[in-house]
């Protein structure tokens, strides 16, 4: 029989997370700090609106772009948080999570041979989506000494004649890094000069702990060259609802809508109704969750300091990214050993790019009690490693 598989797909490495997931799944009593989604339930009034949508029989397709009312609320949200004005009629597309927006956004703009710049460590799907779209990924290895921000020099070094898109993943998963106004302005200057498009994945925009998140789309001259991606998963604890959105110039949204229409049809209807409620009346819930995350973040940073574990202070998302280079073992060895000996699951930094070597992603989407338990074990483990080294 012939080999029916696509060479392109076979050539894509499976996610490094998947491999680790299989090991963890076999350990029934492990504590996990490996989750990339909120521990909170979706706020009740939002769930209630979803139930109400079912009761009213809102069980049909919506328009391809998503419910008009939802697009209007998204436009309102971006105006009140970023001051950026998007036209709900043709500059906003509601998608199945931010992930779909990443995929179809890239597919809508890529021609064969284009290059897409991907700063890493970052979310696992940018690189495969770039390859699937037919472009060549160009990786920038972000540095701890820059707090994992993207610097203008790093960007300039990665740009070639073929560069079409820069993916800008801030607030960042897995590092927790953010980009502030001045950082973004420096990047924007180069982007405009070199005539590049930015795909700004701002899924964690509601979760920052040092001033409000700034979107690069709000920097002068950038709205017309930005595909802004956001969604409801992280801010409103709605991961399972699968709802995100993309905002971009209408020419791009038009092409993205074409792919979305043929591949997906429309985002889940119930989720869209619930999301309207989230945007209208969810600010207080988001603030409460943000406050809780911030307390946990401070707790972890303090705990690392006490055990002398090197870690830069992250100001976004719900991850910390401590450095384990002092132990002289790889991230994967550390994570595997930690799991086997102390039954705590963390994700090796390498799952998010080769330059994640020497780091671990620790999620604080867990209760303080849970974190305390895990940190106690980390303390014990680290002490043991240090003793065996000496």
């Amino acid at each position: 029989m012939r080999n029916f598989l696509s060479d392109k797909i076979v050539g894509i490495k499976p996610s490094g997370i998947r491999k680790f997931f299989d090991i963890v799944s076999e350990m029934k009593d492990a504590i996990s700090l490996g989750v990339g989604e909120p521990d909170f339930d979706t706020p009740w009034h939002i769930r209630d609106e979803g139930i109400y949508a079912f009761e009213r029989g809102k069980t049909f397709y919506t328009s391809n772009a998503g419910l008009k009312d939802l697009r209007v609320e998204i436009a309102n949200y971006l105006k009140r948080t970023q001051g950026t004005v998007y036209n709900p009629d043709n500059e906003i597309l509601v998608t199945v999570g931010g992930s779909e927006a990443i995929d179809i956004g890239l597919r809508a703009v890529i021609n064969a041979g284009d290059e897409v710049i991907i700063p890493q460590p970052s979310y696992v799907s940018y690189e495969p989506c770039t390859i699937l779209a037919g472009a060549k990924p160009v990786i920038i290895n972000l540095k701890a000494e820059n707090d994992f921000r993207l610097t203008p020099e790093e960007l300039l070094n990665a740009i070639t004649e073929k560069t079409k898109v820069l993916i800008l993943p801030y607030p960042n998963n897995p590092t927790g890094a953010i980009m502030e106004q001045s950082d973004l302005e420096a990047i924007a200057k180069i982007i405009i000069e070199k005539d590049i498009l930015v795909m700004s994945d701002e899924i964690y925009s509601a979760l920052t702990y040092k001033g409000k998140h700034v979107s690069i789309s709000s920097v002068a001259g950038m709205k017309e060259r930005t595909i802004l991606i956001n969604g409801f998963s992280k801010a409103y604890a709605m991961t399972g609802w699968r709802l995100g959105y993309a905002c971009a110039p209408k020419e791009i949204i038009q092409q993205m809508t074409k792919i979305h229409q043929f591949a997906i049809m429309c985002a889940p209807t119930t989720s869209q109704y619930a999301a309207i409620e989230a945007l209208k009346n969810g600010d207080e819930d988001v603030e409460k969750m943000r406050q809780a995350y911030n307390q946990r973040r401070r707790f972890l940073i303090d705990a690392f300091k006490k055990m002398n574990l090197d870690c830069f202070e992250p100001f976004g998302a719900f991850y910390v990214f401590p450095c384990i280079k002092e132990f002289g073992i790889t991230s994967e060895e550390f994570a595997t050993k930690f799991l086997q000996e102390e039954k705590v699951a963390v994700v090796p930094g390498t799952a998010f790019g080769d330059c994640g070597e020497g780091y671990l992603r620790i999620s604080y989407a867990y209760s303080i009690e849970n974190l305390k338990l895990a940190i106690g074990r980390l303390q014990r483990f680290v002490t043991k490693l240090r003793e065996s080294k000496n």
Partner: protein
Amino acid sequence: MREELLSIIEKNSRIDFSELAVLLGTSEEVVLSEISNMENEGIIRGYHTLINWEKTSIQKVTGLIEVKVTPQRGRGFDNIAERIYNYPEVKAVYLISGGYDLLVILEEKSLKEIANFVSDKLSTLDSVLSTATHFILKKYKDHGTILNKETKDEREVITP
């Protein structure tokens, strides 16, 4: 910071000062002085424990009593409220808008004791016009805490 501090200790009054300081991103001294200031100002009025009595062998019956009263000239409802809240078995007294005036929450060992309290002590007060007593059959949620539900983390153990 006060609001955040209060919202933490409202849920967990046993948390120690050093941990509070870490969670709030401040020093232990600041936490200590904020708390003692709020105690002095009467903002913090106690550190209670939420007990699910149903799980113990101790019998407790909670009654909610709606009370209609005649307010007194110059003192409004305060005087009669005080007459009622001075009974130690009274757990809470609220002035309520709507169909009646005071809501009295009473905790006793049996229905009979609550009935006795209403007939002997409450109804006999001069200003009390009428009462309506309700008994709590089951407490699902108290002080923001769901009492009889085990929470389980249903998330996948590792996700990107």
